[in-house]
């Protein structure tokens, strides 16, 4: 088999949903001899493929790519370099970051629009509920289904530092057990459906069982869940919840753009 090219490696990495960078020299002088001239692929595991035609530039781009891959919300951008012969080249650094995961605990009727919108937003969506009758692929198309009760969480539900969580079991004890599990993870966001009094009741009950959360853990707990848009139907609530998740993922605070100087983060 022929050696994989930078472009092919990039496409394969993107298809496998693995973070990576493709650097491309923006050249318009002549036909591309092949897809590979002036390209370099850098994976998040440190693999590099390709050549930008200059040792110093290669090193600079690898350093820049690694820096981007370590950032929370890296931006793709064009950099211009001056070569030793004073010629300028522009290189586009294309950063691919895979979609985040969203796990919904609770497969009730109101979880359906949440899962639907989440799937259409391109989030990798999972629904966890022990009731196979409710928690099915028919009800949650495009989502991964995990049928388990709290006892199976540790074994079956994997939570990373890019996994967003929604707790909506509509069941006090289940929500309590779920909170204990998800707050003890790296999840950047744990949204809990229901009023503040219900949340406090659960946290108090957990405290009585000797389970106390740190400020850091509690700072990731969002309750009542969602942005304040006066949502009342399941669909409106789903939009309120997902809008909050998008805001947190993008490092924004929510609210109206009315009169804002910038739409995108500077």
């Amino acid at each position: 088999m022929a050696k994989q090219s930078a472009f092919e490696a990039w496409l394969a990495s993107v298809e496998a949903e693995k973070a990576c960078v493709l650097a491309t020299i923006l050249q318009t002088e002549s036909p591309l001899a092949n897809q590979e001239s002036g390209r370099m692929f850098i994976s998040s595991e440190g693999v590099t493929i390709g050549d930008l035609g200059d040792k110093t530039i290669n090193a600079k781009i690898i350093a820049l790519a690694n820096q981007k891959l370590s950032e929370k919300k890296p931006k793709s951008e064009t950099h211009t370099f001056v070569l030793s012969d004073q010629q300028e080249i522009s290189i586009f650094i294309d950063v691919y970051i895979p979609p985040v995961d969203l796990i919904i605990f609770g497969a009730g009727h109101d979880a359906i629009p949440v899962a639907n919108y989440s799937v259409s937003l391109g989030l990798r969506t999972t629904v966890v509920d022990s009731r196979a009758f409710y928690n099915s692929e028919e009800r949650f198309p495009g989502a991964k289904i995990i049928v388990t009760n709290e006892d199976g969480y540790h074994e079956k539900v994997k939570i990373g530092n890019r996994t967003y969580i929604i707790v909506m079991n509509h069941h006090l004890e289940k929500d309590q057990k779920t909170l204990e599990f998800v707050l003890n993870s790296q999840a950047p966001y744990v949204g809990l459906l229901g009023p503040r009094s219900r949340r406090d009741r659960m946290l108090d009950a957990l405290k009585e069982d000797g389970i106390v959360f740190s400020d850091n853990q509690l700072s990731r707990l969002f309750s009542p869940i969602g942005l304040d848009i006066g949502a009342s139907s399941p669909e409106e609530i789903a939009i309120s919840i997902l809008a909050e998740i998008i805001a947190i993922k993008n490092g924004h605070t929510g609210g109206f753009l009315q009169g804002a100087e910038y739409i995108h983060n500077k």
Partner: protein
Amino acid sequence: MQENALVYKALAKTKEIQKKSALATVVRVFGSAYRREGAKMLIDEDENRTGMISGGCLESDVAEVAKQVIESGTPVLKMYDMDEDLVWGLGLGCPGKVEIYIEPVS
């Protein structure tokens, strides 16, 4: 949809069936723009388009350029200044400057 997800799929498909295409990528943005750096559109030799590189202002022009790129094999870097009267005259109403790199893929 996750940014560019459909473009990646279409790109893999055109490579698999070896259909000639051009890939357009937003590489520089000055001011405001609907789509940011990294946004992509794939145009194949039958002029099928996948993905968005603006809010609908530039797609048609870029698709025209893509035809030449597919034919000549030479990439094009094109700056669209949407503050220009000409563009405003067309009623596009997307302020800002956007630079797009259109390269052949096969």
